[in-house]
């Protein structure tokens, strides 16, 4: 007596109204970036110059490299506040290596490996002992930079080999710097990993529900550990770049970079609560932050006033879609 109905067909996707694409986060960021670019070109005659535009990229490439890995980490529901301290420690180790007569390849290897090691340390504390990452990395933030201070004190390491200068100061082709190329390559790799691989899919799953992900056969701790290592690795790479760009090491190097990298990630539309975000957003956010700071710099606006703009941008860009939805909902 049971009537069996024919199974209902469920479509893959519903046709989305065009408006939802237009009001996507990335679209919003593109508009903001274009607007700032236009304003900059009007406000300063020096802005539209190949060399200016090239110099501009140095304002964000190093931080953006960290931001890519940080984006994955934040999507997975964790955070790493120690990235700038990792830069300091890696740079200090490279400095020590220089004193011991290491050559450029060895220096790069040391910088990257120290970064990786620090990331692994964070990862172990978080995954093995089950500690909250925000607190762990507040601790390691002091610890890593503290070690740099113990080693260096009031001294500086310098005398990096001339060939080492290429990473932070070199140009691959005309005005295209090595840092910019590295940034673009990293953007593509991270985009692919996050959006096109099963690893990336698992990262999203962990960020949305770590327990269900674990029950679904996702090796949550292993993936989180890898993400911490990646973040450390990118910090190590950033350390190579910045050390090369400055040509010297002090323990206070890269102070405050962690908040800028996180700002980039959040501005890029990655949910700070985990589970959502895109690499394209982070790339756009990096450009926006570079454009704002460089554009205001050309007008000789003090850095702290620029930071007001960045802070406002962060809140406004996040508030806008919410307000928009609310307005539409009411009408």
């Amino acid at each position, binding site marked *: 007596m049971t009537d069996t109905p024919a199974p209902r067909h469920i479509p893959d996707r519903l046709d989305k109204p065009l408006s939802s694409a237009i009001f996507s986060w990335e679209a919003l960021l593109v508009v903001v970036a274009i607007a700032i670019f236009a304003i900059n070109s009007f406000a300063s005659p020096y802005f539209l110059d190949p060399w200016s535009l090239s110099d501009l990229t140095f304002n964000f490439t190093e931080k953006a490299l960290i931001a890519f890995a940080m984006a994955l980490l934040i999507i997975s529901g964790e955070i790493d506040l120690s990235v700038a301290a990792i830069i300091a420690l890696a740079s200090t180790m490279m400095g020590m290596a220089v004193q011991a007569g290491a050559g450029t390849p060895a220096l790069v290897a040391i910088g990257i490996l120290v970064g990786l090691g620090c990331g692994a340390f964070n990862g172990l*504390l978080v995954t093995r002992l089950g500690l909250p990452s925000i607190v762990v990395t507040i601790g390691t*933030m002091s610890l890593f930079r503290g070690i740099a201070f113990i080693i260096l004190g009031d001294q500086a390491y310098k005398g990096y080999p001339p060939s080492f200068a290429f990473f932070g100061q070199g140009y691959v082709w005309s005005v295209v710097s090595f840092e910019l190329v590295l940034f673009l390559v990293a953007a593509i790799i991270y985009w692919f990993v996050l959006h096109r691989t099963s690893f990336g899919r698992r990262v999203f799953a962990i960020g949305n529900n770590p327990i269900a992900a674990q029950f679904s056969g996702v090796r949550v701790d292993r993936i989180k550990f890898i993400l911490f290592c990646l973040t450390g690795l990118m910090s190590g790479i950033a350390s190579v770049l910045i050390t090369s760009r400055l040509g010297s090491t002090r323990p206070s190097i890269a102070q405050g970079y962690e908040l800028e990298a996180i700002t980039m990630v959040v501005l890029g539309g990655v949910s700070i609560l985990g589970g959502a975000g895109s690499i394209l957003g982070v790339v756009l956010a990096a450009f926006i932050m570079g454009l704002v700071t460089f554009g205001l710099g050309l007008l000789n606006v003090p850095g*702290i*006033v620029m930071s007001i703009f960045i*802070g406002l941008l962060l809140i406004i860009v996040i508030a806008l879609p919410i307000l928009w939805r609310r307005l539409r909902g009411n009408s």
Partner: protein
Amino acid sequence: MKNILRYREIWLLAAIAVLIGLISMRFPGFADPANLRQVFNDTSILMILALGQMVVILTRSIDLSMASNLCFTGMVVAMLNAAYPAIPIPLLIVVALFVGLVLGAINGLLVWRLNIPSIVVTLGTLTIYRGATFVISGGAWVNADQMSPDFIGFQRAAFLGIPVLSWIALLVITLFFLLMTRTALGRSIYAIGVNPTASVYAGIDVGRTKFVVFCISGMIGGLAGYLWISRYVIASVEVANGYELNIIAACVIGGISIAGGIGSVGGAVLGALFLGIISNALPVINISPFWQMAISGSAIILAVVLNARGERRQGRIILKKAEAA
């Protein structure tokens, strides 16, 4: 829960006692009551700030803008004092509380009305408030010389042999204790941290409570602004730069769970005291200042590890119950 909390605070108290003991071995005068009283006084501002941060963290939020708020409000009162030295100090304190409240309310409104995660809001206002300090001051500093003697002297005046600053800290501690244990607001704050969804169902207005919590941390930031500026007698854009992390570290060491719902006034106070003692003692016992950062970093990690041990949930223990039954 009460038992475990009490347990954790005693742990921390013991750690502090051991710390003082160790320092005294290198520097015998450290454990003198007079010196300890001074350490308390030196840590007062951090304690007050940690309490303000605590209520925020308990609701699963975070206020990264406290130090910037402190800087801004401090600058406002310093400039006011420089321009109108006749304004009495109690009135200035009211102004500081009010300015702080406004800054806190801005955070709170964004969190409440727009539902933006607090870490994002306060990451933004962290830079905005400090930048605003630059704007209102034109970047200029307010120096000791421009401040009135009352402005500087108020917190230093002794009452019953103890400086007013310490009294203010004691007053704030008492108020927070009453707030957290004796009022409905206090219980709501805990409930929101324990289970935000259940809180909505229980009729707690989660958004508005968060707003109130940010107002509290804002007022605390403002109060600390006046205290800080009159203590260190210089108001500049760089005041307390990066101090937000010290405040959070004090809370963490004090056993306040960053996931919300767990923590106590005693914990926050002891956590601040622990950090205060370390920064007070290092110069005294002749440890190179370059070690300070690494030491406090290690202390934070150690504290989290220990706290996590205490917090670790035990299983349901079916078998034990079966035997008992």
